[in-house]
């Protein structure tokens, strides 16, 4: 019995040691939770409050000595009436809609196929999930290589399959393809995420339900729509929640792939926010922007979780 706690207990005077040994559960609970709460308060909550305060000012971080004026709600008013910001919101919505749709369709199909339990399905599942664990920044960077006009692998494959000359289009350049290019990379990266969650959903359906349906002579098609889909739906909705929040915040992968361009074609809100905050240094304005984004995510997520709970209860 020479662990540090015993040593410490032996080295301390008797009354104190009795108190340490006899710490109430309540005291231990607080000692255990306090450091975490403290860290979150210092690095999450305090900065959040600071952001709220800054959002009512015209503060600029690159001019720390300039006079800071209280501007009331003017930042918020300007953001909500700015056409540019509504355009980035639309770009983000387009990105969200298509990535979620593609990932749900492909992810569910893959899970459904893997659930046939063919030989080697474990190995393939492990290989398929690799992209989602990689650094989005590095992924974005190397996809710019695959998307290079003229020399890139993507253009080459397109020419090989469809006959469209590789030099006639540019995935990241002007011509309207860039919004789809970022959707392709996000789908490549995150379809495995939806797949894994769907697979857990499919595996949670007990066999006897299908056996009962078989006894009732329900067709496979009917079984799929009345058993498989409703039972997997809560899982699928959870996957959409996670992906939705993550893609609303999307920054790293797209920042490296297009940086918002060409023009503003792929200017997602996070990238726009970065430009306002760290390139134009409009700190007060971008703080208000950040608060609006946070409230939007939080609001949408709360509504969605309510819907999710309703589906679960059914």
């Amino acid at each position, binding site marked *: 019995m020479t662990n540090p706690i015993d040593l410490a207990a032996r080295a301390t005077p008797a009354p104190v040691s009795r108190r340490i040994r006899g710490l109430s*559960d309540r005291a*231990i609970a607080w000692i255990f*939770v306090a450091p975490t709460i403290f860290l979150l308060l210092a690095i999450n909550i305090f900065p959040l409050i600071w952001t709220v305060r800054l959002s009512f000012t015209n503060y600029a971080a690159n001019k720390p000595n300039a006079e800071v004026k209280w501007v009331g709600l003017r930042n918020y008013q300007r953001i909500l009436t700015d056409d540019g910001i509504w355009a980035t919101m639309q770009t983000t919505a387009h990105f969200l809609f298509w990535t979620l749709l593609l990932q749900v369709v492909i992810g569910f199909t893959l899970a459904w196929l893997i659930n046939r339990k063919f030989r080697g399905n474990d190995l393939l599942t*492990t290989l398929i999930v690799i992209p989602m664990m990689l650094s989005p920044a590095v992924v974005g960077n190397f996809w710019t290589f695959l998307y290079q006009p003229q020399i890139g692998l993507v253009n080459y494959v397109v020419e090989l399959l469809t006959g469209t000359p*590789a030099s006639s289009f540019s995935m990241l350049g002007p011509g309207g393809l860039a919004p789809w290019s970022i959707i392709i990379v996000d789908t490549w990266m995150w379809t495995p995420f939806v797949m894994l969650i769907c697979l857990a959903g499919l595996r949670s359906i007990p066999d006897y339900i299908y056996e009962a349906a078989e006894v009732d002579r329900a067709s496979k098609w009917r079984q799929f729509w009345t058993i498989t889909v409703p039972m997997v739906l809560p899982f699928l909705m*959870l996957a959409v929640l996670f992906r939705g929040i993550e893609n609303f915040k999307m920054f790293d992968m797209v920042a490296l792939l297009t940086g918002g361009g060409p023009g503003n074609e792929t200017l997602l809100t996070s990238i726009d926010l970065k430009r306002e905050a760290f390139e134009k240094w409009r700190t007060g304005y971008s703080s208000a922007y950040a608060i609006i984004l*946070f409230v939007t995510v939080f609001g949408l997520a709360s509504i969605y979780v309510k819907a999710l709970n309703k589906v679960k209860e059914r």
Partner: protein
Amino acid sequence: MSAWSVTEPSKLSKWAAGLLVTFYTIVTLLPLVWIISTGFKSGPDSISYPPKVLFEPSLEGYVNLFTTRTRLGAEEFAALPPPETWYDRIVRGSGMVIAGPSRFGERFLNSVIIGFSSTALSIFLGTLAAYAFSRFKVPLKDDLLFFILSTRMMPPIAVAIPIYLMYRELGLSDTHLGMILLYTAVNISLAVWLLKGFIDEIPREYEEAALIDGYTRFQAFRKVVLPQAATGIASTAIFCLIFAWNEYAFAVLLTSGNAQTAPPFIPTIIGVGGQDWPAVAAGATVFLLPVMVFTILLRKHLLRGITFGAVRK
């Protein structure tokens, strides 16, 4: 189980499913294979069209990744003594000489230091908090747990604005300590949620027996709970490590030289006359390989980790 079951898919459907999934796997791994192979191409081979599938392997990309090089005038170059090492020879082949090591080594080391330190700290704090949430009546428990989770909903850029100002005031900008604390704060929500799930699964009876045997709470925690939770702690640690390893937004905004990690550095690798793709590919490979290995190690707990413990297999 009977030999024939209505829920067992037919041979044909298994075979077809296997084929389709194999096809998807090949297509999805193609970009990764392409990057890894580009790391072993020479400069001209990497940008040839049509892209070269078969090529003469070269370590030029890796040498360029770890060194900086300069071009000399023709006379100077001719006057040089013959190359001494294999990497000297590769660099001479393209008409240059090695001027010194590149920054990649430092950046990689920063990634290791910041990744491992923040993981250790999040696991330490997270295990304590998770144990308390799992075993004790903490007032406002559900609210606190939700609060911990909701800190993840903030867009990183939104968090970065006040952190940037705060770190500037405190002198934590571009320091290892600053990045370690920040990544710990981000990871701790994941750690608490995952670890609480793992500790919930350990029967309370074990600890209660230990308490009756005269152990204190601390001892019961250390000698009974921790060993039982070891697998859960290890997989949680890998998730935290992967997050810190992959993180880009905070790293690019809050670090510049001293504490910069590899993700913001890799895209800045530029060669002479355009991006040096073999070197970028080599950097990506060196950086991504550990994560691929960890993913394979983690496969059993992957689902739990990516859903904050909401889905358990």
